[in-house]
């Protein structure tokens, strides 16, 4: 257990000066602007239903998905609807933070290339301090998970030891470990060999045990093997993201060595996997965009505000460069008005039917840091997550450090009797309720897919409009703005967008604005009222 816990040191934080990477995003909008009728509607229901029982899954069935109440052309609401249409558009769409709500999320969108570039520029920065080749600093930094502070601290204290430990230089003393039996390789003792490729006739490689004329590779340690074995070995190690060492001792291969052996830029692969494991280890600040094939990484510099989001039942939604919106907390796509707990409970519930999940639930625990599922198949309580390397106690799921040497008894664990709630609920009732919500959920999912298709068609219409009418891109933007809103709720707007005649579309410009503004407002109203229910503890997940 020599691996140290990594303190989150955002390596990218202070030297990205490209303003394009800075995005200030505020997902919360002024709720004052939202028409009040939806809220009153719901408040009434709330008071009617009185105290809701705690053990039901989602205590919102009385109103939440009974669609009629949410259809905006509902008779009794027509007045508000009309008055809203007459409001100037800017007031509706302006995104402001209401007082007493959550702080802004300050994040940047990166790609692995960005991170790699940042790492390289970091190396340039550090080079004068270390005064050793950049390649060597890279090895040090990889070893220290890019935690500069800790590296520098250790560097000043015990520079030479560190270089040996990390495999940058060889041991100077003649102490040979039991594995480096010089008797077995008498030809290497004492002689310092040149790093690199050589050609040898009838060379006997002790890895593959073949005797042949071949190219060989060795580091300064003199452990020389045929190039095929080295290639094989490196190929196997590239995806781990760890520093690759000599096949016999712990002298490290630098990127240039890897490229020499492999004959192309394989070290890029290693760097990519190294960055992946970096993100995994710093997953509090870095998150991959969860959308398929999206390469974006969101870097949140200051995670202190996240607690505030959770407390107020807001969700920290972020948007990557490919316009994918997702929740930074739980990694799901946008799930307003539900908060992360509700979403999680729902997703788990929806998946529960599968046997797989049942097995996972009964045999594994989630890593308390990165949430990966871990199965314990023996040994003591000291666990080390193979994904994020977090060390924790299997019993109490807390940090390992305070446990010290008590490998089998966790003294920090207090048995929570409350968790053993009796299962006295009427099963068929729950099942019925679940199927109802599942169906609703499914319907929404299907219609979301249809909306996306509609969005595609509209996109092509916008292009056609630009061609035929010769309008500028900026002028055409009002349509694309509408598309985004359509993804959430579209019905009325989609009707308008079915107008085929380009001239007619330009005439209806105001209409577009009004409708889209309205649709948008409906969405926020829904979000706000959902959040309100969560805040007041009226609906909560029990899972």
């Amino acid at each position, binding site marked *: 257990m020599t691996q140290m816990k990594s303190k989150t040191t955002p390596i990218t934080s202070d030297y990205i000066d490209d303003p394009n990477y800075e995005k200030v995003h505020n997902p919360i909008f002024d709720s004052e602007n939202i028409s009040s009728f939806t809220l009153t509607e719901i408040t009434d229901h709330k008071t009617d239903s009185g105290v809701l029982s705690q053990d039901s899954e989602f205590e919102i069935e009385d109103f939440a998905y009974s669609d009629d109440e949410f259809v905006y052309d509902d008779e009794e609401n027509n007045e508000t609807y009309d008055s809203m249409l007459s409001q100037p558009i800017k007031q509706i769409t302006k995104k402001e933070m209401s007082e007493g709500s959550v702080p802004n999320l300050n994040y940047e969108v990166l790609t692995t290339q960005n991170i790699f570039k940042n790492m390289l520029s970091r190396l340039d920065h550090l080079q004068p301090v270390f005064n050793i080749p950049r390649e060597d600093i890279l090895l040090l930094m990889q070893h220290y998970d890019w935690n500069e502070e800790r590296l520098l601290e250790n560097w000043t204290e015990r520079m030479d030891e560190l270089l040996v430990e990390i495999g940058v230089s060889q041991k100077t003393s003649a102490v040979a470990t039991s594995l480096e039996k010089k008797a077995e390789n008498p030809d290497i003792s004492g002689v310092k060999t040149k790093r690199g490729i050589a050609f040898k006739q009838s060379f006997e490689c002790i*890895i*593959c045990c073949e005797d042949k004329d071949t190219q060989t590779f060795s580091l300064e340690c003199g452990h020389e093997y045929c190039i*095929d074995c080295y290639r094989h070995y490196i190929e*196997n190690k590239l995806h781990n993201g*760890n520093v690759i060492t000599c096949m*016999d001792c712990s002298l490290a291969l630098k990127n240039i060595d890897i490229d020499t052996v492999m004959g192309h830029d394989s070290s890029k692969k290693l760097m990519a996997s190294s960055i992946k494991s970096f993100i995994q280890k710093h997953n509090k600040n870095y998150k991959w965009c969860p959308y398929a094939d999206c390469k974006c990484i969101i870097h949140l510099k200051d995670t202190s505000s996240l607690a505030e989001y959770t407390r107020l039942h807001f969700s920290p939604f972020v948007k990557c460069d490919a316009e994918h919106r997702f929740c930074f907390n739980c990694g799901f796509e946008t799930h307003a008005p539900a908060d992360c707990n509700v979403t999680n409970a729902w997703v788990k519930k929806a998946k529960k039917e599968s046997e797989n999940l049942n097995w996972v639930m009964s045999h594994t625990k989630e890593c308390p840091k990165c949430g990966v599922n871990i199965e314990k198949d023996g040994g003591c309580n000291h666990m080390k997550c193979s994904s994020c390397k977090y060390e924790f106690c299997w019993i109490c799921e807390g940090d390992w450090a305070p446990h010290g040497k008590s*490998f089998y008894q966790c003294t920090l664990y207090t048995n929570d009797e409350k968790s053993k709630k009796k299962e006295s609920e009427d099963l068929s009732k729950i099942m019925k309720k679940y199927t109802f919500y599942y169906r609703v959920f499914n319907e929404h999912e299907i219609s979301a897919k249809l909306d996306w298709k509609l969005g595609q068609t509209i996109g092509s219409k916008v292009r056609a409009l630009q061609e035929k009418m010769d309008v500028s891109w900026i002028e055409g933007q009002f349509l694309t703005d509408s598309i985004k809103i359509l993804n959430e709720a579209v019905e009325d707007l989609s009707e308008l967008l079915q107008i085929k005649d380009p001239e007619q579309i330009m005439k209806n410009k105001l209409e577009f604005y009004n409708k889209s503004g309205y649709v948008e407002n409906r969405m926020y109203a829904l979000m706000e009222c959902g959040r309100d229910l969560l805040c007041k503890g009226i609906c909560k997940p029990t899972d």
Partner: protein
Amino acid sequence: MSSLCLQRLQEERKKWRKDHPFGFFAKPTKKADGTMNLQKWQAGIPGKEGTIWHEGVYPLTIEYPDEYPSKPPKVKLPAGFYHPNVYPSGTICLSILNEEQDWRPAITLKQICLGIQDLLDTPNPNSPAQEPAWRAFSKNKAEYERKVALQAKQYAK
């Protein structure tokens, strides 16, 4: 099976037959059809003279993955073996057998066997793999030694 894995194993076998430490044995197992299975070996590790382990020869199974020698073999003692660094399943917790720690492709069967012989009498209490032996070893040496001696008799030469 990859050719590198096979080649190397054949050579390991040759080397072992030519020269191996005294009291040890190691041989590939047989498949159902009677042919040799080079990826699964059986071996015996004698306890060191002058230690509480000396009476026994402890049976090992060694399984080589296809990625060998990039990846280490999986080495097991019988399930339930009494030793602080042996999992209840019999899997041995030793740094040179761990890919993420000290495994190197250049490590030979002989080194593995000697390493395990070493481990028998010098357990590492900071990396326990089973509770009973670890607890006895750190808290009740007499009890530990009694159990080990008993086990040695069970696996007597």
